[in-house]
């Protein structure tokens, strides 16, 4: 025997003020990482402060990446049920690794980085096989 619980819908407001340049960058086709001016550490996802206390600057990620891992998701989670199976990949671009959506990739493929908006209006990174 069951009793149904009262419904609880949760939708959060995520503060992105300190890294707003990243999100605006995606809209302009640019993927940013941050780099510390003092110790040289780079951050992706970007963070607005370095652990060493130094000031960070915004640096564009570009050039060729190499696919290190990927999966094609067939069992779709809630929030993505509008979509067909999709492929998530991780590619290395020099000193950072980046997650993105891709099509028909294999580990070792060379890719270019792009940005785009999915059907729900969320901006993200896409990889294009070279």
């Amino acid at each position, binding site marked *: 025997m*069951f009793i149904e*619980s009262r419904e609880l819908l949760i939708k959060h407001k*995520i503060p*992105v003020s300190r890294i707003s340049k990243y999100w605006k960058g995606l809209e302009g086709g640019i993927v940013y990482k941050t780099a510390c001016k003092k110790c040289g550490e780079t951050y*992706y*996802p970007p963070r607005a402060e370095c652990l060493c206390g130094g000031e960070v600057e915004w640096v564009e990620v570009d050039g060729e990446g190499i696919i*290190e*891992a*990927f*999966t*094609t*998701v*067939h*069992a*779709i*989670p*809630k*929030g*993505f*049920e509008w*979509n067909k199976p*999709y492929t*998530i*990949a*991780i590619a290395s671009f020099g000193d*950072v*690794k*980046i*997650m*993105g*959506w891709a099509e028909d990739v*294999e*580990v*070792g493929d060379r890719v270019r980085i792009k940005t785009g908006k999915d059907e729900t209006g*969320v*901006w*993200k*990174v896409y990889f294009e096989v070279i």
Partner: protein
Amino acid sequence: MRVGVVGVGCSKFGRRDDVTIQELAYEAVKEALDDAGMVQDDIDLSVVGSVNTRGYELMPAVPVNEYCGFAGKGPLRVEAACATGTAAVYTAYTSIASKMADVAIAIGVEKMTEVDTATSLAIGGRAGNYLWEFHQYGTTFPGYYAMHASAHMAKFGTSEKQMAMVAVKAHRNAAKNPKAHFQKEITVEDVLNSRVITYPLKLYDCSPISDGSAAAILASEEKIKEFGIDDVIWLESAGYASDTSNMTNRESFVGLKATVLAAEMAYRRAGIDDPVKQLDMATVHDCFTIAEIMAYEDLKFCRKGEGGKFVEMEESDIGGKLPVNTFGGLKAKGHPLAATGVAMVYEVVKQLREEAGDLQVDLKNYRGLIHNVGGTGHFAFVMLFRR
């Protein structure tokens, strides 16, 4: 000061529509108390491990603690994703070792089937770093491990067939474990032909969504003498580590660094340099078949890249060089997150006491290992137990 396990309990794992989280917890607690020959009053501290992001009771520690008869003795609530169980055991262990308690109980309990599968996937997919993973890319828990599998296959030639062999072994053992979620043997073909969940992982590569509970009672050596308990399994050594929340910040995807570091710590403290020779059995965190293959390597049961071969050569079977996941593993016994780590203690204690029935391994060293991973290598605990 030595700390020993004096009582263990474990519920039936599976879809447990018949019980609330507190009723489920009490099944394991009752068994553990009976096993130790103790009553609630003998316990100083209760540690309740529960993730319970899928259950209706979002803050379950107090209801669970009260229902089990420990009101006033805690609870300390512990959460470390899928490693919550061992985090609870570690908390009980250090409380006793630091003399803040003489007898402590670690309870791991999880209700996972109160929501639908798509919701469950969306919760598990939030295990890393939400904004950069789930929000943008729709990561799922199987998806994270599938990415590891793709990297392992590309680098070492690990095959889907070798991964399937992990599942076949798990089901073979679980078939003899009445508390396991699944009691059905499967074949390599069954695994290879099952539907794709997230390439390259298929349905039978994945642990099920299970409800379950487990409990372990730990006590100081002094208290153990006072109670006149002679059959004690000592917690010999414990190691812990963690890794980055974002998968993209990991050095490599062919293993879990947190496991390597936790094992090094536990091995160093116990003087282990050849685990296959020095241990009689191990339970490792096989939430997905690839996870068990990586665990063999990261725990130094074999060299990096040879995990697929290790299962193929039947080294991890009961009767093999080092039996692994003798009660069916997360894969077939079930993986109720917080219960998992404590159920590993249950398994190692039953094995070292020679109470494992049809699943009993041969004992030479009277030493066993447990390995419990939280998230996708976000946390790792490795513990060694000795009779």
